[in-house]
Structures are given as C-alpha cells and as structure tokens.
C-alpha cells in the first residue's frame, strides 16, 4: 500500500497539465472575483474569511481534480502495466487503497497551496494569524472529504463508462448536485451527501453564504429528497462527513469486481 501510495502520488504530482489547469482556474477566478477577494481580505473576522475561501475552493476546484483523477485506475489496463502489477504478490486491496490515497493526496497539493496561500496572505494583510488555524481546520473537515469523495468516484466510474464521458457527466453532476437550489428540481445539493460540505460549513463554521444570510443545509420547503436533509446541527454536520467517507469507501470496494468484469 505504501509503495502504491508513494508512486501514485509521484506520478500524479508530475502531471504538468494538472498544475496548469489549477493555475489557470485560480487566475481566472481571481480576476473575476477580484473585488470579492479584496472584500475577503478586508473581512474583519478570520473565521468568516477562511470559511468563504474554503467554500469557493470546494465549489470550483473539484471539477478540476475530478477530471484529472478519472484516468488513474483505468490507465493501468490501457497502458498495459496491469499484468505486471497483478502478477506481484502485493494484495489488490492494498494496491487499490495506495493508489487512491496517493493520487488524492497529489490532487490535494495544489489545493493546499492555493488555499493556504490565501490564508497566509490574509493573515499577513489583516494581521490575524489565527486565520491559519481556521484554514487548517477547514482544509481537514471540508476540503479533504470532498477530495476523497470525488476521488473515489473518479477512480471507479471510468471502469464502467469511458473516462471522457465521465468527465462531462461529472462536471454536470457537480453543479447540479451542489449548487442548484432544491426547489428548482430534485437535487442532492444542501443534503448530507453534498460533497461541497454544506452541513459542516454552516454548522461547524457558521457560514451563511457570501452575504452571510443564506441557509446552506437542512430541510427545504417544497423540495424533493428532503429525507437526505435532516435538521442541520453539529451532529448532522459530522454525520455528513461520515456519510461522504462511507460512500467513498463503498464505491472503492466495488472496483476489484468491476475490473475483473472487463479483464477476465
């Protein structure tokens, strides 16, 4: 497992296109929301500033890393490396988890640079070093679960459908499942299994959208799928993180069987 972790991390981190894509998106975002950024830097509360930063990272960047992680598992067969790896005595489950955690970790590196870069900038300009502590907490509780959730699907779903198709569907899903208001159509947004993290953002960090007055999580009147939107509390926020990680593990556990289907 460590072997796969180390090398999958290295290979994913060496993808120049991943760095370029993240860089371009962030640059664009920075330009489009320049006034928002200055607002954020002027924001008196370190907690609010860091939380809106995490929200923004989680809103946009999963689209990038979801697409970049989509080839990680299927490429072993495409490249023809799979027979070599499969003929070693290393356990399939260990290799799979190493690959998953390694490539997710590599995908999280640009996020960390961007997000902690923002945190350091804020801490320096606003003079609130506590921002770094908030940033660390948000990274662990909001950004990383999204990476693990998206990563599991990105690795496994391309075993069923071609990776390019997955990317298109994934981008569609991302905005449908995270940012559409639930009264418009049935959606997973504002629910426990919304990887953008509405429950933890709202309940653990008191986030209320850019204006501070938006309800992110919890039941919505006249919306379908409200059974996935229990009342928002700190407990359901932690539950939401647990659900995201459990779904990720479940999806991953299907990988060996799905692979066997195509290669045996």
């Amino acid at each position: 497992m460590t072997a796969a972790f180390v090398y999958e991390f290295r290979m994913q981190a060496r993808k120049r296109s991943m760095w370029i894509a993240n860089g371009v998106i962030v640059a664009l975002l920075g330009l489009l929301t320049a006034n928002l950024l200055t607002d954020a830097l002027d924001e008196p509360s370190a907690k609010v500033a860091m939380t809106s930063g995490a929200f923004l990272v989680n809103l946009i960047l999963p689209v990038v890393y979801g697409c970049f992680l989509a080839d990680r598992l299927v490429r072993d067969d495409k490249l023809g490396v799979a027979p070599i790896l499969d003929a070693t005595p290393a356990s399939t489950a260990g290799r799979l988890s190493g690959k998953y955690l390694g490539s997710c970790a590599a995908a999280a590196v640009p996020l960390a640079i961007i997000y902690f870069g923002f945190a350091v900038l804020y801490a320096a300009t606003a003079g609130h070093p506590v921002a770094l502590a908030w940033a660390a907490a948000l990274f662990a509780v909001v950004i990383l679960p999204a990476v693990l959730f998206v990563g599991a699907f990105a690795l496994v779903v391309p075993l069923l459908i071609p990776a390019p198709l997955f990317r298109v569907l994934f981008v569609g899903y991302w905005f449908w499942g995270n940012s559409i208001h639930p009264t418009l159509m049935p959606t997973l947004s504002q629910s426990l299994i919304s990887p953008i993290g509405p429950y933890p953002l709202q309940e653990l960090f008191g986030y209320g959208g850019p204006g501070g007055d938006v309800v992110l999580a919890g039941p919505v009147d006249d919306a379908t799928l409200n059974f996935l939107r229990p009342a928002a509390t700190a407990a359901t926020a932690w539950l939401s993180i647990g659900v995201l990680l459990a779904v990720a593990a479940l999806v991953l556990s299907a990988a060996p069987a799905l692979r066997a289907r195509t290669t045996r």
Partner: protein
Amino acid sequence: MRIEISGLVKTYKGKGRALDGLDLLVPTGMFGLLGANGAGKTTLMRILAGLLRPTGGEVRIGGYDVTGRAGRQAVQRVLGYLPQDLGVYPDLSAREFLDYVGLLKGIDDRATRRRRVGELLEVVALTGDADRRLRGYSGGMRRRVGIAQALLADPRLLIVDEPTAGLDPEERIRFRTLLSQLAGERTVLLSTHIVDDVAQTCRELAVLAKGRLVFRGTVDDLTRRADRRVWSVVTAGPAPTGGTVVSALPVEGGLRYRVVASVPPAPDAEPLAPTLEDGYLALAQPGAAEDAMRP
C-alpha cells in the same frame, strides 16, 4: 518447480475455447512453448501467472493450486512474469519503475532493492538511460525494462511471453543466453515465435494449436519429425507446391527453395538435414499430425 496442468479449459466470453482440455507437464529447467497466433500460449501463461481464472481443469505449480487465493499468492512470491503486451508508466524513470515493482514484490529493504535494481539495469544494458522518463524509450528498451522487472525478486519460476520480440539481434541472443543460464534450478517457461530461440536454449518444448497440445517432447524429437521431409529445389519456374516453403533464396538459374514436404516436390529435389523449424512446420502438415503425439 514443476507445473502440472490437467484438463485446462479457458473460454472467453462469447468466444470459442482458447484452451481446450490441455494436459501438460513442465519440469524444472528451460521449457519452450510454440504455436501459431491465437493458439493459446498467452492465455496459458496468464493463467499460470494468476491473472486469469480458468474455466475448468487443474493447475498446480510446485504443489500450489493457482486458482485459489493462497496458492496464487504463494506462486506469485516466486514468480517473474514478462507479459506479451507489456506497458510501463511513461511518467516514471526506468529506475523508479523497477523500484516500484520491487516494492510490490516484497523487497522491503531499501538498500537491497537499490542494489538489485542497479544490477538488473546493468544486465539489460540500460544503466545509461536509467534516470530518463520511460516516455522516451523505444519499444525494445521498454521490453528490456520488462525483462529486468521479471528478474527482480530472483524468481524461481519465470514465465516469459515472447520476450525477444522487438529486440535487436545482439540483445536477443544475450537475453536468451541469460535465460538458459538462469534456468538451472529454476523453471523457465518461454513462449516465442522465433523457433531458433527455442532450439538454442531448450531441451524440451510443447507445441499448442487451437488450445490443444499437439506436441510435447525434446527439441531433437521435434526436429526428427522433418526427417526425410526437407528438400532443396532450384527452379526459375513457379514455386513448388504440395509442401511448405521455408525459404526462397535467389541463386544463379532462379530461386533456391527450401521446402518441407512428405514427398519430394520435384524430381531433382535434394534432401536436406532438418532444423527445429522444419520439424515445427512438418507438424502442421497432414500425415505428421497423426503421429505427433507418439512419444
């Protein structure tokens, strides 16, 4: 390590049988595997390497049943496998790739692994390019990385599927010699289309056709199948019929044909001493197949 195969059947989804009730015993030492395209060589090797589950039959390697999880792991611990369609990670260097495979093979000690990887890079003559990304490697260089990877953990069982395809003559001869040297106590199963590689390295071999065993014996046995069946004919006219043309060489007065046929293809045909390749070709001819299984 002996490989004992009995009644082995493999059916791919929606296809005929790739292996059709194969019985074969592979002893310790170097053993050749020949057969036309699609004969089932790769399928057999993938089953032996634990990559493919057979549809039926039994396979025991050194006493382990490779179809079970425990047996498969036990075999894979002593296995070196070079797949036919071999790939590498383009974004790693040869040294890194070998280090990765070494880790997966359980060479946990870092210093041992480094030393081993270095030795094998030397063996396959890639030391100079070892730290370049594999993306820029030629086909033959990649195959050499594949060879090195198969030898990493000092395997007692080596399964190599067309290892010399794409190698230059010098490398090919170096590698096949290396294989024979390694054989000794080990079992080396070599599949190839280069009959001469088998003739130069193996004492025993098997020939598959359409998933069945059509020959198993020594190189001399197979060569003798072509006794009194190899002819040399010089003609400026049409190619001789009624046999398999092995070669056609331009000479004064036309072409000199080497023909494997049960009767002389022309009145002035001269008999020649057979090679293993002639024996292999004779096997596919009517008359030879019937007595092919004769011990």
